[in-house]
């Protein structure tokens, strides 16, 4: 093969690159054969937050070719400093699991199965049912004739997926309806 100045320089460049990688701690020798390839190599890092509890640990999602390939704790975030509990550590499976719901599911009264519904239908149903129930059950005055505006037949279950600000808005909306029964469940 005829060697030109250009190909010679290319060779030198590649040699320098290999040397640098070796010095940076990438073992290019024997180990390569039996250690699997780093699955997040070259992946883009996307920051997100664990949805499971009020600690709100920060997560790095590794995205490769537009697909999420791995998740782990964000070491730069002061609250969790890279760590995660069993729930947060399993976020990647939550994303890939075939149990994951991607559309609203509806089970009609006395029905024995769930059916997929659109968001439009679901939100419309919720709005109508809240309105109907409230119109029917709202208690405007108590026995003494004092104004109470109480709506006792609806219960609101909160979630730790909601941020502080979302909780404030939800709370105000429900108080506005007259709902008095509200609670929180950290696992929903």
């Amino acid at each position, binding site marked *: 093969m005829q060697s030109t100045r250009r190909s010679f320089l290319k060779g030198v460049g590649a040699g320098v690159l290999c040397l640098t990688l070796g010095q940076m701690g*990438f*073992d290019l020798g024997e*180990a390569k054969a*039996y250690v699997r390839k*780093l699955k997040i190599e070259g992946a883009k890092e996307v920051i997100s937050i664990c949805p499971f509890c009020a600690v709100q640990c920060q997560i790095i999602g590794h995205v490769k070719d537009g697909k999420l390939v791995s998740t782990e704790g964000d070491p730069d975030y002061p609250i969790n400093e890279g*760590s*995660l509990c*069993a729930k947060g*550590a399993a976020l990647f499976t939550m994303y890939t699991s075939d149990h994951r719901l991607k559309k609203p599911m509806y089970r009609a009264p006395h029905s024995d199965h769930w059916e997929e519904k659109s968001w439009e239908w679901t939100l419309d149903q919720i709005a109508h049912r809240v309105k109907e129930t409230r119109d029917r059950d709202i208690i405007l005055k108590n026995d003494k004739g004092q104004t109470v505006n109480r709506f006792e037949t609806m219960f609101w279950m909160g979630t730790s997926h909601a941020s502080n600000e979302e909780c404030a808005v939800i709370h105000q909306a429900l108080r506005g309806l007259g709902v008095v029964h509200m609670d929180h469940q950290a696992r929903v």
Partner: protein
Amino acid sequence: MPKSFLVDTTRCTACRGCQLACKEWHDLPANETKQTGTHQNPPDLNPYNYKIVRFREHLDEKGNVVWNFFPDQCRHCVIPICKEVADMAVPGAIVKDERTGAVLVTEKAAQLSEADIKAVIDACPYNIPRLDTKTHLLTKCDMCADRVQAGMLPMCVKTCPTGAMSFGERDEILDLAQKRLDVVKQKHPKAYLAYVRDVSVIYLLAEEKKYYYEYASFM
């Protein structure tokens, strides 16, 4: 310089973050499990769990319940007996990466016969390797060698939210282990470091190994 782990069991709250993070990093599928009367789940190491947190409880001399947690994994022995045994049948089936100290099962392990596999499993003083009958490969913790080679922490250590697990250069971890032992001894006078010289995964145990797991320590 080889790497080492320190697992301070007195700091472990058995959240099992390590167990799950390991499973996620290695893309291992779920196991079908059932309630067996303990939080230890799945009940044992298996081809889909390279790491599990073992739970064990007993009464102390005052009649109080003591609940011990033991995040079990391959010790990446300084002189791995599994490798010695496997080498007799198929050289290179199990290798030791000298740079990290990781003991790794290679694809050549598929050539091991049933008898060889049984011999390797029986040889492990810590009862770690398990056979994946689908791939005919031995499975166990690989120290996240892919991560460690790229300068990252093994997934279990990275995830641990209580600081029970540390990872680093062996001499630094040995120093840290001694420092933690001095602190832990004030509360647990019987505390000790399990079989430090021979393993890369050093366990700080608060009491005798029988209160953790039969194979928690060699001696």
